[in-house]
C-alpha cells in the first residue's frame, strides 16, 4: 500500500512538491521563531550569571542591564568613584568590579574595567572566563578582546588597536592618539563578552580626560542628609550639564571642575588608601558596578541599602529580575511572531487539504481501478491518510533542513548584529511538541479529504467517472 501511495504521489510530484515545500516553510518558521526566542533568552540568561547586583546611576533596570551586560546602549549618567568604594566596602558585598562604557572599537563596545572582571564574571551557568591566548592587561594601555572581536579582525596578543568615542561601526571621533595593545584573547563564551573589548579603567580614562563628566559634589553628602529629593536631582542635572559641555567650548570651566575633583580625590585618598591600594587609578566617574554578594539571600536588603545611598542616586539591579522585565517587554513581539508562525503553519496545513481534495475528482478513476482489483473503501481511505502522512513527514524533514541551512547562513549575521547564535543541535522537547502539533493537525485535516474519498468510492463503485 505504501509503495502504491509513493508512486501515486510521485506521479503528482509537482503539486506534491509544492505542498511539501509549504509545510516545510511553516515548520521552519515555527521552529525558527521558537529557537530564536529560546536562544535569545538563554543567551541573555547565560550572560548574566555570576553577577548578583549591577549598580548604576538611578535609571531603568532593563536599560542598565542592556548597557552593562550586553554592551547595548548606555547607562544614563555616571556614578562617582566614591560610590564605587562605598559599594565595595559595604558589608555583605563580596566583590565589586567597576565598569566604564561609551567607547567602541570598530563597532564593538569597549568596556573599561579592572582585572577582577575576568576573575569574577561568569557565563553559561557559572563558567569562568578563560584566556585563549595571553592574559589580562597589566599595564594601563593593555586590552583584552572577546573571541568574536579577535576572530573578526585577526587580533592576537601584541596587536595594536584604536578605539573611538561613541558606539557604531562608523566613528568620527577616533582616539588614535591613544592606541591599546592586546594582551589577551578570551575563549568564546556564546555571550556578549565575545563581542567586547576590555581595557583598564586607567586606559579608558586617559581617552576621556578632557571629556569626563563628573558629579561627585564634595558637599553632596552633607546636603543629602538635609533633603532626600533635591540632591539627587541636582546631581543628575549637574551631570547632564557637564556632559553637554564636555567636549569643547567650556574647557576652561571644566578644567577648573576637574581640578576641584582632584582636590576632592586627594582628600578622599587620605581616608581609604590603606584599604584600597590595589586601585592604582581612580577615575572621576564610572558607569556601573558589577557586585557579588557574600550571601545571596541578602540581596534584597543590600539592594534597599543602595537605593537609599545618599552620595549618588543609585539603582541596584538584580540581573534576573531585569531579565524578567525584559521578557515582559519583548513578550508581545514574541506572541506576535508565534501567532504569525502559527498562521503560516495553518496555511501549510490548508494547502495540504487543498492539494489532497483538488486531486480527488481527477483520481476517481484511480480509485475505481483500485476497487476493481480488491481495494476496499477503507483501503482507499488509508491511501489518502498515508499520502497526508508522507507529505507531512517530508515537509517536516525538509523544514528542519531548511532551518538548519538558514541557521548556518544566518548565524554569523545574527552573531554580529545581535550577539545571538542559534544552536544547530537536536530538536528540544518543546520543538518536538510543536512539530507534532503541526503533524497531527495536518493528519486531522487530511482525514477530511480521506473521508470524502471513502464516501465517494462507496457511491462510485466501479463506475468510471471521467
Amino acid at each position, binding site marked *: 500500500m505504501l509503495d*502504491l501511495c509513493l*508512486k*501515486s504521489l*510521485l*506521479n503528482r510530484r509537482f503539486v506534491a512538491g509544492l505542498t511539501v515545500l509549504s509545510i516545510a516553510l511553516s515548520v521552519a518558521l515555527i521552529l525558527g521563531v521558537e529557537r530564536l526566542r529560546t536562544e535569545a533568552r538563554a543567551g541573555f540568561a547565560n550572560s548574566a550569571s555570576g553577577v548578583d547586583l549591577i549598580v548604576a546611576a538611578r535609571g531603568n533596570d532593563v536599560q542598565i542591564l542592556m548597557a552593562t551586560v550586553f554592551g547595548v546602549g548606555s547607562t544614563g549618567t555616571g556614578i562617582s568613584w566614591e560610590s564605587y568604594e562605598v559599594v565595595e566596602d559595604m558589608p555583605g558585598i563580596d566583590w565589586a568590579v567597576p565598569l566604564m562604557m561609551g567607547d567602541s572599537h570598530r563597532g564593538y563596545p569597549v568596556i573599561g574595567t579592572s582585572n577582577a572582571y575576568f576573575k569574577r564574571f561568569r557565563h553559561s551557568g557559572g563558567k569562568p572566563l578563560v584566556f585563549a591566548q595571553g592574559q589580562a592587561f597589566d599595564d594601563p594601555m593593555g586590552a583584552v578582546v572577546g573571541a568574536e572581536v579577535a576572530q573578526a579582525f585577526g587580533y592576537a596578543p601584541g596587536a595594536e588597536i584604536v578605539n573611538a568615542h561613541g558606539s557604531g561601526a562608523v566613528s568620527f571621533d577616533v582616539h588614535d592618539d591613544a592606541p591599546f595593545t592586546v594582551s589577551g584573547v578570551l575563549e568564546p563564551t556564546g555571550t556578549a563578552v565575545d563581542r567586547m573589548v576590555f581595557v583598564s579603567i586607567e586606559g579608558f580614562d586617559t581617552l576621556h580626560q578632557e571629556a569626563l563628566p563628573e558629579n561627585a559634589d564634595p558637599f553632596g553628602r552633607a546636603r543629602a542628609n538635609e533633603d532626600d529629593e533635591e540632591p539627587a536631582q541636582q546631581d543628575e542635572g549637574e551631570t547632564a550639564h557637564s556632559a553637554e559641555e564636555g567636549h569643547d567650548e567650556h574647557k576652561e570651566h571644566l578644567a577648573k571642575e576637574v581640578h576641584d575633583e582632584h582636590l576632592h580625590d586627594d582628600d578622599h585618598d587620605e581616608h581609604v588608601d590603606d584599604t584600597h591600594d590595589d586601585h592604582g587609578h581612580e577615575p572621576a566617574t564610572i558607569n556601573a558596578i558589577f557586585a557579588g554578594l557574600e550571601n545571596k539571600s541578602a540581596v534584597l536588603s543590600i539592594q534597599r541599602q543602595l537605593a537609599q545611598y545618599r552620595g549618588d542616586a543609585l539603582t541596584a539591579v538584580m540581573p534576573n529580575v531585569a531579565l524578567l522585565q525584559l521578557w515582559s517587554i519583548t513578550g508581545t513581539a514574541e506572541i506576535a511572531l508565534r501567532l504569525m508562525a502559527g498562521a503560516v503553519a495553518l496555511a501549510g496545513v490548508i494547502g495540504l487539504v487543498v492539494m489532497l481534495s483538488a486531486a480527488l475528482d481527477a483520481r476517481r*478513476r*484511480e480509485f475505481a*481501478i*483500485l*476497487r*476493481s*482489483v*480488491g*481495494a*476496499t*473503501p*477503507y*483501503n482507499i481511505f488509508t491511501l489518502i491518510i498515508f499520502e497526508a502522512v508522507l507529505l507531512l513527514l517530508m515537509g517536516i524533514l525538509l523544514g528542519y533542513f531548511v532551518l538548519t541551512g538558514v541557521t548556518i547562513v544566518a548565524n554569523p549575521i545574527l552573531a554580529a548584529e545581535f550577539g545571538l547564535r542559534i544552536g544547530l543541535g537536536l530538536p528540544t522537547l518543546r520543538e518536538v511538541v510543536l512539530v507534532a502539533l503541526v503533524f497531527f493537525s495536518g493528519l486531522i485535516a487530511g482525514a477530511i479529504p480521506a473521508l470524502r474519498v471513502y464516501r465517494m468510492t*462507496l457511491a462510485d*463503485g*466501479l*463506475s*468510471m467517472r*471521467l
Partner: protein
Amino acid sequence: MKPIELKSLQYRWAGAPRLILDIDTFELRANEKVMLRGPSGSGKSTLLSAIAGVIDIPKASVFVAGTDVGGLSGRDRDRFRVDHIGLIFQVFNLLPWLSAIENVLLPCRFSTLRREKVAAEPKTTAIRLLNELGLTDPKTLNGPASALSIGQQQRVAAARALIGAPEVVLADEPTSALDEEAKDAFVELLLRECNASGSSLLFVSHDRTLEKHFDRTVELGVLNSGAK
C-alpha cells in the same frame, strides 16, 4: 458449482421509479464464454455491478462461484470480488503511474487467494501472461502504463483479470476503443487465456461481429424485462 447464477434478480437505483434490472434466471456454466449483447441503457453496467457485488442487491438473487453475493457484507464483498472475479473495463483500466507488470500484479496485492493460486513467483506469472497476450518488449512491460497504446492497455487489463485464475472474468465492452483487426485479435487472446486458466467469461458488447468467438450470445433486452 456454477460460476454465475442469477435468480429473480430485481434492482432499482435509489429514488428511481422503475426497476433497471428484472432478470428471472440466468447462468454461466464452468468454462463457458458468453457474450451479453444489448444497446446502451439496457442495464449492462448495472448487471455487471450486481454480479461484482458493487451495488447492494437483495439476498439470494446473485450467486458467484456458489456464494450469495447479496448476503455478504460490504467488506466481504470487496474481498470476495477480488478473490473470484477478474474485471476488464471499457477504457482506462490501468493505474498510469505503475508499470504494466505492476498493474497486472494488483489483484495479488489485495487477494491472498489469487496470490496463492499463482503457482510460480507472481511476477514471473505476470510476465508470462503478458507475453502470451503479445506484450514481450521489456521496455513496454516495465515502463509506465501511461506510455502504452490503448490496445496494449487492454491486453494488460486482460492479464490482470486473469492472473490467479479467478472463476469469472467480467469484461465491460473492452473492445469498443479498438480498431477492427485489434478487436478480433484481442477477443481471441482473451478467450485462449480464459481457457488456459479455466475461467468463465461474461463479455458485454454491442458488437455483433464478435459473436462468432463465443459459446452463446445472450440478448440483455430479452433477458432483462426491466430494461424498456
